[in-house]
């Protein structure tokens, strides 16, 4: 798998996410990402998992990043 293939894969998947969000906003037949998150957050375990995932993203990007300061 070359860098170009890897990046193309990411681009395709993000395009899919954007297309899904647009379809949800325009057609309303599937939930938006926010509505899907709300469904997960309605259960206590889902709520805690979402918040834990969000906190992990923050730790991963800002605490253990490899950026030079």
């Amino acid at each position, binding site marked *: *798998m070359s860098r170009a293939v890897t990046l193309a894969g*990411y681009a395709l998947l993000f395009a899919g996410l954007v297309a899904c969000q647009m379809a949800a906003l325009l057609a309303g037949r599937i*939930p938006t990402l926010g509505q899907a998150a709300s469904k997960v957050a309605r259960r206590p375990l889902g709520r805690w998992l979402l918040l834990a995932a969000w906190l992990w993203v923050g730790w991963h*990007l800002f605490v253990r990043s490899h950026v030079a*300061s």
Partner: protein
Amino acid sequence: MRALVVAVAAAYAWWAAGLRPFTWPVLAAVVVAGIAAVALGTRRRRVAGDDPDGAMVWAVLLALLAGWELAAYFQAPRADHPTLSSLANEVLDWRPARAVAFLVWAAVGVDLARR
């Protein structure tokens, strides 16, 4: 009031973006921002609405993204098989981008806490 909160958050994000990674100050900055975001969001919880079915579409897409990321993670060299975080690091190396990303991350936290 909202403008003041945004201004304080932006200033905090700018300050946090200047901290060195892998240090206690940046860990504290992320934890404090996390607690503040959750506290702020919890104060204004959203009323549950009647959302359409079909959340499985999102689960599949996000699972595919996670799988693609894992496939890249277990290959080498990283330059040829970048992960999302290695790609993000290239952008976050610039302090303004890092501050904006911090602010967006905090805003997502507030939104999640409201749900």
